[in-house]
């Protein structure tokens, strides 16, 4: 066990691997060492001096972010000496701080506010001097710099320099005149630059998009997966009163570390669309080809009828559909001649230089690999051609062009989210949930199966597509339909060997890689 080092941190004895920093060792012992400049995805400059801790026998307090543990270290994060040092750092950080928390977007999720509340002085000793003042600066399409709130932790500078490899930010001047500078001719336009807002531990770098939209404590946070591309970045969906107001990265060291791209970050308005299909609609020739609303029992019965009568079936699916939905819709039409494909919009690649295997990918769908596992191809034109002669075409929330929509005849079932009058010729229109309104999984390009969670209420009568398919399948004699997404996922194993035996519990919050061979084939 020579590669382990035994240390005691605030009385907790723990063995950590050699070379671990004190701050990370403490994390493993369940102890947070307060810090600002340290970030696990950035090089550590040890400049904020907030993480100074008392290491017995060391001549002075040691910066926990860059000091590696040594055998037998006894470390005190919360003794008087360490606390007094932190109290002092907080006091120094606050003397020029505007204390404008009531109008600051960061309030409620601000590390300066949090630590001052925990360990700071109750009153200032700097009352008689003017505070430093700098105007707010526009740093780019979505970033404002409020210099007065800046604590010069330099995370943003290091991100642009060491991770994005586009050093457009700097520390300018020195001493207490220092501030974060930007190249006047080059804004924060790098496709990953929005991360500086998340990295900023205070309210100094803020998002224009989120400006004054919500108070942090009014937000509900839900773990999710970015539906923007095959990378499968882990995200947090922030909603306020059932409206998504912000997407932020959620750490997953194997997928996106602590980052998401600006494209993914900005792409959430579609989730809030109000023009939704709210109830199942069936077309009645007797009523002059008008649709009328039905209850689910009737709608599912109608769906079972249509499927039961069809021999040749085409599925045109969105690449944003969950693995559960893709799998169970496909299973619903088993035993027929089936052509199933997903739509894969393409875009430019935008890698993040400093993180291996992290990029905004050209394939702008989150579940390409899940669809492949479920038996879907990406040959969209072939599937559209097949639809012309099929007995039944099921459109699973695909975003059709006018020309594509025009080819669909009455033998069409639309399972969709947004009301689309171009498919009003369809026999049946069934309302389904979007990815923020359901639980589900996506399989990313590295065959990592990752869960996302329901972030907001489903509108009207909408139901997840897997539920719709399974219920119709039960009517057709396909066994008892799963009642939950977890059960739906567990049932996928019977038709998708790569997922056999996997459960939601095992996937956890960071996912699980299945059958890497499949992932290789996907590229």
């Amino acid at each position, binding site marked *: 066990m020579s590669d382990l080092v035994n240390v005691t941190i605030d009385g907790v004895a723990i063995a950590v691997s050699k070379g671990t920093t004190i701050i990370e060792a403490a994390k493993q012992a369940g102890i947070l060492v307060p810090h600002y400049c340290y970030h696990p995805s950035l090089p550590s*400059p*040890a*400049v*904020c*001096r*907030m993480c*100074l801790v008392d290491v017995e026998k060391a*001549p*002075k*307090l040691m*910066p926990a972010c*860059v000091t590696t543990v040594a055998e037998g270290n006894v470390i005190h994060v919360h003794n008087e000496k360490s606390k*007094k*040092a932190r109290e*002092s*750092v907080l006091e*120094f*950080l606050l*003397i*020029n701080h505007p204390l404008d928390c009531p109008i600051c977007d960061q309030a409620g999720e601000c590390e300066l506010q949090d630590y001052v509340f925990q360990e700071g002085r109750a009153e200032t*000793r*700097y009352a*008689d*001097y003017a505070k430093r003042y700098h105007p707010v600066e526009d740093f780019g399409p979505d970033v404002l710099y409020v210099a007065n709130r800046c*604590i*010069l932790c330099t995370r943003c500078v290091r991100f642009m320099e060491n991770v994005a490899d586009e050093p457009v930010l700097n*520390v300018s*001047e*020195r*001493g*207490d*005149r*220092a501030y974060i500078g930007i190249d006047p001719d080059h804004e924060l336009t790098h496709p990953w630059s929005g991360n500086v807002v998340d990295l900023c531990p205070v309210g100094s770098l803020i998002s224009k998009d989120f400006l004054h939209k919500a108070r942090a404590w009014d937000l509900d946070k839900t773990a999710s997966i970015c539906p923007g591309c095959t990378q499968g970045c882990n995200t947090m969906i922030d909603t306020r009163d059932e409206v998504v107001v912000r997407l932020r990265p959620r750490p997953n060291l194997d997928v996106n570390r602590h980052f998401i791209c600006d494209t993914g970050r900005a792409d959430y308005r579609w989730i809030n669309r109000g023009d939704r299909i709210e109830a199942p609609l069936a077309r009645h020739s007797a009523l002059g080809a008008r649709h009328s609303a039905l209850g689910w029992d009737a709608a599912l019965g109608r769906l079972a009828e249509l499927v039961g009568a069809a021999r040749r079936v085409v599925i045109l699916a969105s690449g944003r559909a969950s693995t559960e939905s893709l799998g169970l819709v496909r299973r619903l039409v088993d035993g027929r001649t089936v052509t199933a494909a997903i739509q894969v919009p393409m875009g430019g690649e935008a890698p993040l230089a400093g993180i291996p295997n992290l990029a905004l990918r050209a394939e702008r769908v989150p579940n390409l690999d899940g669809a492949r596992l479920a038996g879907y191809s990406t040959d969209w034109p072939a599937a559209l051609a097949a639809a012309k002669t099929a007995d039944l075409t099921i459109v699973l929330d695909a975003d059709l062009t006018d020309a594509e929509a025009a080819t669909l005849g009455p033998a069409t079932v639309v399972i969709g989210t947004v009301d689309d009058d171009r498919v009003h010729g369809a026999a049946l229109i069934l309302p389904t949930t979007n990815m923020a309104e359901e639980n589900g999984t996506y399989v990313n390009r590295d065959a990592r199966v990752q869960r996302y969670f329901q972030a907001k209420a489903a509108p009207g009568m909408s139901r997840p597509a897997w539920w719709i398919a399974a219920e119709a399948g039960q009517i057709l004699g396909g066994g008892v339909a799963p009642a939950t997404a977890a059960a739906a996922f567990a049932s996928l194993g019977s038709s998708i060997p790569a997922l056999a035996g996997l459960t939601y519990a095992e996937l956890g919050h960071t996912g699980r890689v299945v059958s890497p061979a499949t992932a290789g084939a996907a590229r």
Partner: protein
Amino acid sequence: MGFPHPSHPKETVVLSKYFGDAEARTFAGWVKRGGYEGLKKALSMTPEAIVEEMKASGLRGRGGAGFPTGLKWSFMPKGDNKPHYLVCNADESEPGTFKDREIMRWTPHQLIEGCAIGAYAIGAERCYIYIRGEFTEPWKVMTKAVEEAYANGALGPNAFGSGKRIDMVLHRGAGAYICGEETAMMNSIEGKRGNPRIKPPFPAVAGLFGMPTTINNVETLAATCHILTRGAAWYKGLCLSNPKSTGTKLFSVCGHVMKPGNFEITMGFPMKDMIYDLAGGMRPGRRLKAVIPGGSSVPIMNAAEAEAALCDYEGIVAQGSMLGSAGFIVMDDSADIVYEVYRLAKFYAHESCAQCTQCREGTAWTTKILERILKGQGKHSDLDLLLDLSEQMTGRTICVLSDSCAAPIVSGIQKFPEEFEAYLSRSKAPALAAV
């Protein structure tokens, strides 16, 4: 241009022997005065033997920290097949210190010779001499001397026919005190902000351009020539007090003395003689009040401490301060301690690199408090606040700039409380106009 004084009989002139002798600036003149013998001898020795010689001489760093030079050189890895670098610290910026400037102005070849010895001893083929941007005259003198040294084969691919390559590059600073800190200096040479680096890694492991590096002060390197020509035993024998402090040392004396200048004495020389004899003593009718002996970054000594101290590393510590870079800022009874402490705090606030919180904010805040006291608007609680802030500025940061700011503040308050009290009680007129 300031001209050096003729040497005083009580001085022991080794490094400063040719100060003021214009001919010594030339290669030929330096050789005529026995120059480059040390380098030639070095090139005939093994690097290990030179390091041993330095260890035996007791030579300690003259830049401020006083670390044994031979030991520092011995930390350089051997047989690692990486380029090694020697950096000569000629960024002399410590208030009160102006000795390296004179070494470069008058005896540039003394420094080049020392640098070449050091480079060879640590296995470096290249030496960077970092000269502060304001030193325009030393820069010109050094530039010419380096050209001459190349032209005469002392430097280059085959230094003095030894088959050893020794290159020397002058690098100009641009106005930043903190670049005198060794890791900040490495960043500055690399074309970066002069931010001090976290240690470890230490420069001998990963220094300039990530390679094993040794940084030595101008005076330290200059001394190595004489140690090699005259022997470690001779150098070690130059000692009047503590055997851990050997050799001669240049002391810069400035402020309220009749004859400010550089004085070279044997280690352990009485400070009293330095001030009253060599530097000509106080102005008529004035009495000694205080000395800041290490450049400005050390505690202030009162008159009694200064008069009792011996000029070496231990002697000054014994009297409550530190030798530092050996620049004595002498103040007579006309000096306003509060104002001078304020002026130094302002210096450190100006020079803080902005990395560490305590230094960036603390140096500026303490300056404001001192300014307020001088405006006659201070509160009695300000002294406790200054002491408390100083404590938090000491031993908390990457480098010691904020410690250096705190040292004169704390010692000033402790040793001259009545001067602060006079402003606080409004019994003394404000030194600064209130706004």
